[in-house]
């Protein structure tokens, strides 16, 4: 069925950690992902971008086997597209879903305990220390019900659940959605720290966060991949941002501070994003 221990057969850093080929997916009989293909490199952050409702979440769910899908999903050289979700996860895929999906009735400690896995890509003492260092708040609130946490704290729980394990890749879906600017930069800090240890496929709307974290981008529109390339190339091109993401870098709603000045000053979107990111983090 699939090759075992593929990592030993492959030179390090060579191929992508995750390859998606001709992936289609349907929800309730309706096709929402159309023949999507892209790679996630073995290091750094690959951002999966696109307007609301274009199929980013569905693409991640299809990779995870959470919705009906067809096409090839290759993880570490092994086909996993016929496998059940829990098998895929145990191969080292950490999933941080949209809207956190913490178990509200369980305590923080129980949420984390549930996420601990055994085996090759399972929980390790080093990972537990990393989580404790990144999210000291969670240790303090161990006995609190996750449903009573703030959105930001719930996001920390959701991230921690994925970071507890020696994953080969993380799939992270809109981790800053609906969070206050200060919390957005805390989440971005945690993701930046995580990205030093594991490659990440990140769905994100906040351009400042994309600018800070993303190395490469894959853009989806109407369930199809419409652009792939270095993150910089997209962020420096106001017209491309407008076309693919439907936002002006300078007036991103809900996230962060609005950027003063704008294209009128002749700056590239990238510089504006830089400024905005500085403003957001300067508030700390």
């Amino acid at each position: 069925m699939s090759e075992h221990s593929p990592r030993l057969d492959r030179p390090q850093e060579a191929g992508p950690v995750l390859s998606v080929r001709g992936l289609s997916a349907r929800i309730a009989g309706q096709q929402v992902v159309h023949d999507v293909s892209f790679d996630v490199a073995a290091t750094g952050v690959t951002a999966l971008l696109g307007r609301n409702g274009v199929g980013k979440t569905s693409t991640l769910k299809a990779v995870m086997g959470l919705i009906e899908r067809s096409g090839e999903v290759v993880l570490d050289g092994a086909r996993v597209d016929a496998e059940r979700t829990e098998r895929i996860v145990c191969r080292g895929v950490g999933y941080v879903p949209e809207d956190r999906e913490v178990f509200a009735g369980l305590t923080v400690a129980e949420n984390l305990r549930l996420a601990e896995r055994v085996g090759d890509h399972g929980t390790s003492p080093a990972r537990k220390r990393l989580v404790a260092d990144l999210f000291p708040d969670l240790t303090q609130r161990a006995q609190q019900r996750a449903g009573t946490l703030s959105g930001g704290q719930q996001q920390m729980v959701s991230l921690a659940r994925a970071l507890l394990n020696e994953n080969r890749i993380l799939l992270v879906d809109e981790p800053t959605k609906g969070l206050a600017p200060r919390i957005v930069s805390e989440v971005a800090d945690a993701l930046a720290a995580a990205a030093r240890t594991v490659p990440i496929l990140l769905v994100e709307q906040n351009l400042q966060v994309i600018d800070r974290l993303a190395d490469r981008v894959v853009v989806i529109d109407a369930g199809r991949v419409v652009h792939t390339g270095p993150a910089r190339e997209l962020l420096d091109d106001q017209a491309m941002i407008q076309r693919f993401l439907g936002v002006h870098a300078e007036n991103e709603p809900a996230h962060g501070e609005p950027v003063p000045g704008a294209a009128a000053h002749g700056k590239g979107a990238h510089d504006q994003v830089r400024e905005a990111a500085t403003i957001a983090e300067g508030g700390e």
Partner: protein
Amino acid sequence: MSTLILLLVTGVGLGGLYFLVASGLSLIYGLMGVLNFAHGSFLTLGAFAGLAAAGAVGAGTWGGLLLGLLVGALTGAAAAALTELGLIRPLYNRHIEQVLVTVGLSLATVALFEGIWGPNPRNITGNAWLSDTTELLGARIPNTAFLNILAAALVLGGIVAFLRYTRYGLIIRAGVENRSMVTALGIDVRKAFTLVFAVGGAAAGLGGVLAAQSLNYVSPHMGASLLIFAFIVTVIGGMGSLTGAAVASVVVAVLQQLANSYLNNSGDLIVVLLLALVLLVRPSGLMGRTA
């Protein structure tokens, strides 16, 4: 006064029997979204197997009773686990088909039981103490009521401890909330399905042996008649809520006893009215999650 005490205690005892059936129904529905119509068959099978085992070492003896309870529980657990593995699992996530299969199984098994043991109730040789009564505040309470209350309390405590302190209990609690996220943490939730069926089947099988002691007979239909009230209890308590099932079991059974005694045998009618009232005022049940 003594009549009221008698009705209250026997009501709670009957509630204990309801809870032994409803606890499994509630757990299974909470985790899997399946109404298990075959649950009554686990009870009936447990009753017949338990009484056969009791008869083998001496019907009416304490040893026979204890062995009967044990065998009844194990039989219920085995039947339920086999049902889950053989019929429910192949229909993973197809809830309507799963429910239909349990309906079919319940009809087929009742026919099977009738074929094996005959359609009529069979009297059993009860334990002498259980056939007796104990005086409590002037009321003469059948001893089976105390046994039912004790058994239901132990099962409730056992299930609560299991849910709270074991890894599988954690998985089940999480799965009741959000099953797909449990799989997305790398956990094979299907094992929890089998386990929940087995635990529910064990409680039902135990309930079968106890019901036979209370009724003084076994019959291929005893599961089906208890199941109706267990369903009502589960709905009133809030589908998927174990505490809700426990509270509703007692409320329904006590109300039923009181109405039967004071209101012209209208117990069943009152229970159905209560069900309608709860559904109107609180559609998610007493302790159900509002969603």
